[in-house]
């Protein structure tokens, strides 16, 4: 289709491109700043003032300190455990729930849908949840970070919408061949809804990777801490008057100067994996947010 552009429209077009370009820079710059700072020589960085257009000098000393720190390594492994085990269980449970709620002739479907959707808008809140975890004996265990969030209601509804779009014929022919519901779900529905499943996996995995609050209130044992909780101590607690032991122990044997780059290196180490993954799922994002999925 060919359209004639008036002068006003051409001006708008130019302004729009310039604005969005600036907007992109604003989105990108904070991360670039951290990246440049993490690669800088600590002494040069300490003297620098203002916007960073590139690393100041070049040094990997911060990364050496961070990657040799046993706490960070434990945290990293713990986070990997929570991400992998958590996400597998999340997707399994969510897929089963979505399959049940996407059946057409199920007498108890409506009450089940209401029961699920209601939890999006009302809940017991912080204190009863905390007491429940203690009561169930999950306090200070790895399970405390996995079991309470097994199903995110939103993801369940998104997945259900994806399942409902699968043509009935596929399931019926499988049923005639004698397949039971488990076979239909895992052999037919999940493979044909790959795009939706990919988005759900990403949502859950990123959720586990970035989670910190439950770890803070449910875990005492530092050996179980996920990376984000350690990051909080390194990045935030020491500047807002909290626990400084962690950041001090990080500096053992190194000049205090290294500390200026350590913050940035830990951010990069903790963030880069996620930033590498999401662009590959990007083409599926729209499936995860379609409006039809939201109305109960």
């Amino acid at each position, binding site marked *: 289709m060919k359209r004639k552009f008036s002068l006003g429209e051409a001006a708008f077009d130019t302004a729009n491109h310039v604005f969005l370009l600036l907007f992109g820079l604003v989105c990108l710059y904070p991360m670039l700043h951290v990246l440049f700072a993490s690669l800088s020589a600590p002494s040069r960085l300490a003297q620098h003032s203002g916007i960073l257009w590139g690393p100041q000098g070049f040094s990997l000393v911060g990364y050496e300190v961070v990657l040799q720190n046993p706490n960070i390594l434990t945290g990293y492994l713990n986070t990997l455990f929570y991400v992998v085990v958590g996400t597998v269980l999340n997707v399994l449970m969510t897929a089963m*729930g979505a399959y049940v709620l996407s059946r057409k002739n199920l007498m108890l479907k409506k009450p089940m849908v209401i029961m699920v959707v209601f939890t999006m808008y009302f809940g017991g809140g912080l204190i009863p949840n905390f007491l429940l975890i203690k009561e169930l004996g999950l306090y200070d265990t790895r399970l405390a970070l996995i079991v309470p969030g097994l199903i995110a209601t939103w993801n369940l509804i998104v997945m259900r919408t994806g399942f409902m779009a699968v043509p009935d014929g596929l399931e019926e022919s499988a049923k005639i061949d004698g397949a039971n519901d488990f076979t239909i779900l895992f052999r037919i529905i999940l493979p044909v809804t790959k795009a939706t499943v990919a988005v759900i996996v990403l949502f859950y995995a990123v959720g586990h990777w970035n989670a910190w609050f439950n770890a803070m209130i449910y875990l005492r044992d530092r050996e179980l801490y996920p990376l984000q909780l350690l*990051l909080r101590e390194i990045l935030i607690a020491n500047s807002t008057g909290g626990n400084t032991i962690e950041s001090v122990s990080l500096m053992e044997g190194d000049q205090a100067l290294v500390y200026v780059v350590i913050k940035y290196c830990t951010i990069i180490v903790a963030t880069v994996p996620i930033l590498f993954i999401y662009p590959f799922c990007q083409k599926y994002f729209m499936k995860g947010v379609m409006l039809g999925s939201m109305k109960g």
Partner: protein
Amino acid sequence: MELAKTPGAKRNPNAKVSRLRKDIVMNKYVYLMALPVIAYFLIFHYAPIGGLVIAFQNFSAFKGIGGSDWVGLQHFQDFLTSPYAFRVIRNTLMINVYQIIFGFPAPILLALLLNEIRVQLFKRAIQTISYMPHFISLVVICGMLVDFTQSEGVINDIIVFFGGERANLLMDTDLFRTIFVSSGIWQEVGWGSIIYLAALSTLDPHLYEASSIDGAGRFRQLVHITFPALVPTILILLIMRMGHIMSEGFEKIILLYNPLTYETADVISSYVYRRGIQEANYSFGAAVGLFNSSINFIILLAVNYLSRKYAKESLW
């Protein structure tokens, strides 16, 4: 096999029960799958709702819910008459209202601007970059905020360059909400625009062609075609956002606030966290939490009702 005899008994009061039994037998694997899911929701969503009864007790972990003393509305009264009630309710509402006024329209505007871009490569590049902050963890975002706003940080360097004075911006009660809300917009505007772009992608291109033949320019198309196509999405999202008007963003508050900024930063949920978890006043915390979620739920019902009545859009 008893089941085989019952289908005829339609008027029987037990008919529903027997139909259900038949339904369960026929769909036994479906119900088998439903079991762990139902169990999950009962234990981790409905049991805590039941656990809210401790808001009306002096709950003690030793005595349990059954053995603790009942105190009626004592904790609600204590909260509402305490000097902190006004502060935390005001802060909760102000932060959320700012988020809705400035944060809610931002992704709509971004989607409309992106929609006008014809160069697909440019559009996709901007989109990819704009999603990035959404995937950065809250802890890292707040760590960056702390670093950038401290008196030696990059934002202060820029302020000094333009002739201002250095200050730790996050310790400034007047700036807390501004920093909180604007960094939230920065993090979520790109991600938030996806749903609007998804809605626009289903729009029939013939509408534009037809209006173009009728002589409508791009601005008029924006006003008369593109924007109206977004209205249902906007309404639904606005209702959903109102459903979280008292609870949004409390993890970020806990990461960013400190005793110096409680005056403008402390919200109901962060107050519940301090009093309830840190000081182990479980009953008082549960009462304040229940107060919060009840008001929130009432607001949701009201907004949904109004939207259904006047705009014919609602969640249910």
